[in-house]
C-alpha cells in the first residue's frame, strides 16, 4: 500500500522523466520476456538435465585417475553436449559435434591410450600435488567469467525452425564463410600430414639403434 506523500516533497515531474520511466518499464518487460525464451517445459527440463550431466562428466574427466575411464567420460560429455545443441535448436552443430567430437576426438584419444599401453606407458595419472592451487585457479576463473557474463542481455527474436536452420547454416558456411571453410580444410590436412610425419619419425626412431643401425636389419651370415 502506497503511503501518501506531501505535495511539497514530490519531485517535479517533467516530460523527459516520464518518457525515461516509460522507456525503462518497456525495457524491463522486454528483458523479463526474453528471460523466458525457452517456453516449453520439457525442453527446459531436458536442457537442465543435459547441462547437469555435462558438468558431472567434466568432473569425471578431470578427477578419474584411470585415463581410459576418463576418455569414456569425455566421449559421454561430448555426446551430452551434442544433445544439448539439438535441444537448443542447433541440429547441424550437434551433428558436427557428434561426428567430430564424440567419434573423432573420443576414439582418437582412446586409441592413443591403447597404443601407449602397448608401448608400456601406464594409463594412470598419479600426480596430485597442485590440487589446492588448481581449485583456487578454477574458482577464480569461474568467478571472473560469471561476473563478466552476468551483464549479458538476450535480444528479442526467433530462430528459424530446425530444418530451416540447417539449410540456412549450410548456405551461410558455403557462401559467406567459404574462405574460412577452405582454411579449415587446409588446417585439417596439415594436421593429418603432421601426424603422419611424427608417426613416421617415431617408427624410424624405434627401428634405429643408438649407433645409427636399423634394428630390423637382419645380422649378416645367419640364415632364417
Amino acid at each position, binding site marked *: 500500500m502506497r503511503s501518501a506523500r506531501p505535495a511539497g516533497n514530490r519531485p517535479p515531474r517533467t516530460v523527459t522523466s516520464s518518457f525515461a520511466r516509460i522507456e525503462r518499464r518497456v525495457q524491463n518487460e522486454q528483458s523479463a520476456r526474453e528471460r523466458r*525464451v525457452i517456453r516449453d517445459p520439457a525442453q527446459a527440463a531436458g536442457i537442465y538435465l543435459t*547441462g547437469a550431466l555435462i*558438468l558431472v562428466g*567434466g*568432473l569425471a*574427466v*578431470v578427477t578419474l585417475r584411470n*585415463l581410459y575411464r576418463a576418455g569414456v567420460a*569425455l566421449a559421454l*560429455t*561430448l555426446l551430452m*553436449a551434442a544433445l544439448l*545443441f539439438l535441444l*537448443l*535448436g*542447433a541440429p*547441424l*552443430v550437434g551433428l*558436427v*559435434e557428434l561426428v567430430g*567430437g564424440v567419434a573423432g*576426438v573420443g576414439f*582418437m*584419444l582412446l586409441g*592413443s591410450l591403447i*597404443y*601407449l599401453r602397448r*608401448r608400456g606407458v601406464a594409463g594412470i*595419472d598419479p*600426480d*596430485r600435488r*597442485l*590440487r589446492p592451487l*588448481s*581449485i583456487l*585457479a*578454477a574458482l577464480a*576463473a*569461474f568467478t571472473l*567469467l*560469471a561476473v563478466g*557474463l552476468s551483464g*549479458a*542481455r538476450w*535480444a*528479442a527474436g526467433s*530462430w528459424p525452425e530446425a530444418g530451416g*536452420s540447417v539449410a*540456412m*547454416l549450410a548456405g*551461410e*558456411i558455403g557462401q559467406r*564463410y567459404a574462405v574460412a571453410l577452405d582454411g579449415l580444410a587446409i*588446417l*585439417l590436412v596439415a*594436421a*593429418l600430414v*603432421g*601426424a603422419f610425419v*611424427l608417426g613416421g619419425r617415431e617408427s624410424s626412431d624405434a627401428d634405429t639403434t643408438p649407433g645409427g643401425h636399423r634394428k630390423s636389419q637382419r645380422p649378416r651370415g645367419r640364415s632364417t
Partner: protein
Amino acid sequence: LLLSTGLFSIGIYGLLTRRHAVALLMSTQLMLAAVIIALVAFARFTYQPAQPLAGQALAVFIIGVAVAEVIVGTALARRVPRQ
C-alpha cells in the same frame, strides 16, 4: 552460459592438475566444448537479424579446429612419453 563457465573452470582445473599428455588433451577438449556451448548459447539468445546463424557457423569451425588439435596432440603424445 553458467554451464559453459563451469565446464571451462573444470577444464582449467584438469589442465593444472594432470600430468599425462593425453589427460591434458582431454582437459583442453573440455575447455573447447565449453567455448562451443557458450557460442551456441549466445547465438541462440542474442539474435541478430542480419547474421542469425553466425555463432553456429563459428561453433562448427571451432569443432574442426578442436579435431585438428587432437590429431596433432595425439601424435605428439605418442612421442612425449618416450623422451
